[in-house]
């Protein structure tokens, strides 16, 4: 018999650690259907008949956040055989609140009292036997971190599932409320399975619209129920949701009083002491800056950077590619095949794997920050600045990492819980110039602006402005305007990060990058390589005679309003999608040079001849803001899904075009170029940007109406 075991519990209750203990390496990560909430599944170690699903960490089964809805739908519709409810024993009050709701689903439940060792260490006591009696389900004491109580938990869970022992129904509400629950039950009787009768009755009493929809009641039943709920609410002079929640917590308070004894509490525990310093009004920002510099320094400047450079320059450029080339020659492979394998395939794979070491280093650091509890504090410290333009306080990390490389930057957005904030962050991170865009900045500054540092300064400034503007614009779009999750965030106690948790988190994210991002990066790089190496007759040629050249010539007119409508600049922009620093190399090839250094000094005179200052700046603006390299697009696909990724690329292209158009055309107008049709186009683009910036936020309006109505 296959047993489906669902792990449920609050965030930070140690559920992930327990999941890793139980499943080991057999776990895999996907998404819940229809939402971007992560779904983790795995088989129980040593018993393949037990499939464990790790539900998202939730505080309640309310119908509001996507995580809660996913968990609730899974329990009510898929009905797993057993729920293991992981409870943080050091915080029984809030954790048992979810337990009371889980017990109402009618599914067999076993409560795992996690971190029991910490409770004992504090000198506190929990009477788990009594707790089991009061709750009406099995209770097992465990410590996921120390792997204590694992066997007992598993055997209890499997036995409970096998005998299908549903929790004993306990009347936890006041007599008056229980009477109303019975009243509603009598209406629903026969409409729903008996095991869900109490669940749905309570939900209807709470005015839960989602549950009401699922029941498909006829109008007569609806009116009986709404009349009952009205009487209920007027009897207590409050709304149904509040009455039920209040009584739940009252019940829990009495349960906790009966079953646990707290030793005399010290005034400040270690976590409090750490927090006193770390989120201190004066020290918080300097400490935050130090942590951020350390993360950047380790993942981009030093360890991560070295490893990525080693993979790119030593492993691929010096070993694998020449090795493969000579091996292919020695076995007498045709030149085109050799070129295809070396330049197309191996380079494509290299583009994916090159980022991996850096990414792993970053993911390790992020996992440590998350696991030790500091990540929640980052949101706390930075919230005030970032919420102004619709982002989370945690958006700081992706943008900061993005100044080094957009790919890990985008991937770092996965630490943001709110879906909408996470997506907007992933879409805007690459506006900030990454290290690969610096050569382009250096080229334009060197060739046309006498090496002025202000070009670079303006590039970063432009990036920040683009992020702020896009945050405001995107927040108002329908696809992001689902009710924003309220910022009511638990600040978990600090603790030492677990090696296993960090390892699993890093491994999972790195694998997700290779799988989701890798395919896009590989295919796109191989395609551009093909287009730039062959002509239409499929003969190998230089880039100046290639298919890419004819594409460039065909579409370069699009960029004429931006001031650089020649095919060289267009082709350079296209090859920039493989990696932004390619823009320089392509200019070099197109101007007939073989080597181009980082600053591009060799091609300055050519570039200076084919651009004006204004058109060069417009070229720079477009290349800084337009869709990032394929690797970053691949990373966006991982965070946003296929559709979301296409939308992001389209948005970035249109935004970059509009800004570069405004820069060039208004610049021309300012310098006395006269008002042309293109100027009109720029006026329209500017008007469009302003419209999207200042148009009223539909959601906000709706929210205001709600508030004034109450």
């Amino acid at each position, binding site marked *: 018999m296959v047993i489906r075991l669902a792990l449920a519990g609050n965030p930070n209750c140690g559920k992930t650690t327990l999941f890793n203990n139980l499943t080991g390496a057999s776990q895999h990560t996907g998404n819940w259907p229809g939402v971007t909430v992560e779904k983790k599944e795995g088989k129980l170690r040593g018993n393949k008949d037990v499939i464990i699903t790790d539900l998202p960490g939730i505080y309640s089964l*309310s119908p509001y956040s996507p995580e809660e809805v996913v968990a609730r739908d899974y329990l009510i519709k898929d009905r797993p055989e057993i729920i293991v409810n992981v409870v943080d024993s050091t915080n029984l009050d809030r954790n048992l*609140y979810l337990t009371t709701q889980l017990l109402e689903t009618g599914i067999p439940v076993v409560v795992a009292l996690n971190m029991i060792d910490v409770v004992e260490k504090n000198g506190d006591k929990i009477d788990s036997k009594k707790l089991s009696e009061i709750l009406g389900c099995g209770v097992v004491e465990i410590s996921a971190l120390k792997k204590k109580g694992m066997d007992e938990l598993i055997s209890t869970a499997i036995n409970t599932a096998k005998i299908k022992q549903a929790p004993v129904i306990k009347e936890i509400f006041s007599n008056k409320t229980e009477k109303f629950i019975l009243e509603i039950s009598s209406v629903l009787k026969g409409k729903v399975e008996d095991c869900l009768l109490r669940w749905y009755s309570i939900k209807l009493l709470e005015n839960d619209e989602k549950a009401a929809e699922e029941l498909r009641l006829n109008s007569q039943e609806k009116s009986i129920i709404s009349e009952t709920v009205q009487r209920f609410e007027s009897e207590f002079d409050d709304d149904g949701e509040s009455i039920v929640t*209040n009584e739940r917590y009252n019940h829990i308070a009495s349960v906790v009083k009966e079953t646990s004894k707290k030793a005399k509490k010290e005034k400040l525990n270690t976590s409090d002491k750490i927090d006193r310093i770390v989120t201190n009004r004066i020290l*918080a920002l300097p400490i935050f800056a130090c942590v951020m510099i350390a993360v950047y320094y380790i993942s981009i400047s030093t360890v991560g950077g070295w490893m990525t450079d080693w993979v790119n320059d030593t492993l691929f450029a010096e070993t694998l590619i020449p090795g493969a080339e000579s091996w292919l020659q020695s076995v007498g492979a045709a030149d085109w095949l050799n070129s295809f394998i070396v330049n197309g395939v191996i380079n494509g794979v290299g583009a994916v794997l090159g980022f991996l070491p850096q990414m792993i280093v970053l993911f390790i650091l992020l996992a440590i920050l998350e696991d030790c509890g500091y990540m929640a504090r980052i949101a706390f410290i930075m919230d005030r600045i970032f919420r102004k333009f619709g982002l989370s306080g945690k958006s700081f990390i992706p943008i900061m990492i993005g100044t080094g490389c957009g790919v890990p930057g985008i991937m770092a957005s996965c630490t943001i819980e709110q879906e909408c904030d996470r997506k907007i962050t992933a879409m805007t991170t690459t506006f900030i110039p990454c290290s690969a865009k610096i050569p382009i900045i250096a080229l334009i500054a060197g060739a046309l602006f006498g090496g002025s540092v202000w070009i670079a300064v303006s590039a970063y400034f432009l990036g920040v402005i683009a992020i702020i503007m896009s945050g405001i614009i995107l927040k108002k779009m329908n696809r992001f305007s689902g009710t924003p999750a309220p910022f009511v965030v638990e600040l978990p*106690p600090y603790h030492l990060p677990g090696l296993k948790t960090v390892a699993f988190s890093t491994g999972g994210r790195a694998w997700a990058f290779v799988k989701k991002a890798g395919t896009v990066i590989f295919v796109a790089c191989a395609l551009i390589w093909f287009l730039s190496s062959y002509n239409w007759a499929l003969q190998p040629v230089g880039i100046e005679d290639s298919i890419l050249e004819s594409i460039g010539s065909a579409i370069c007119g699009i960029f004429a309003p931006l001031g650089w409508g020649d095919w060289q600049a267009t082709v350079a922009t296209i090859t920039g999608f493989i990696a932004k620093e390619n823009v320089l190399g392509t200019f070099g090839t197109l101007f007939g040079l073989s080597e181009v250094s980082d600053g591009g000094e060799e091609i300055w005179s050519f570039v200076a001849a084919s651009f004006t200052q204004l058109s060069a700046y417009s070229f720079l603006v477009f290349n800084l803001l337009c869709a990032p390299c394929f690797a970053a697009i691949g990373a966006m696909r991982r965070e946003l899904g296929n559709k979301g990724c296409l939308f992001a690329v389209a948005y970035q292209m249109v935004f970059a075009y509009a800004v570069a158009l405004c820069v060039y055309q208004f610049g021309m107008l300012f310098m006395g170029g006269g008002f042309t049709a293109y100027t009109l186009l720029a006026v329209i683009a500017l008007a469009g940007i302003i419209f999207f910036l200042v148009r009223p936020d539909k959601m906000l309006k709706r929210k205001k109406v709600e508030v004034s109505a109450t």
Partner: protein
Amino acid sequence: MKTLKDAKCGDTVTVIRVKGEGQLKRRFMDMGITKGCSIFVRKLAPLGDPIEITVRGYELSLRKADAESIEIQ
């Protein structure tokens, strides 16, 4: 009516009621901010907002604008 927004750091207050409706109200109550529970206002974020409180033995942070819908005494 006094709200949580008006409370000062170091104050211990009692919740009278949570105003509003929908997700925010439910979230507050799910996190244990219910009628009659006591809240200790722990600190302000370095930039003056959000605030950090202790409720039911754990730390919670929330924005001042949202704290306005929690009536206290």
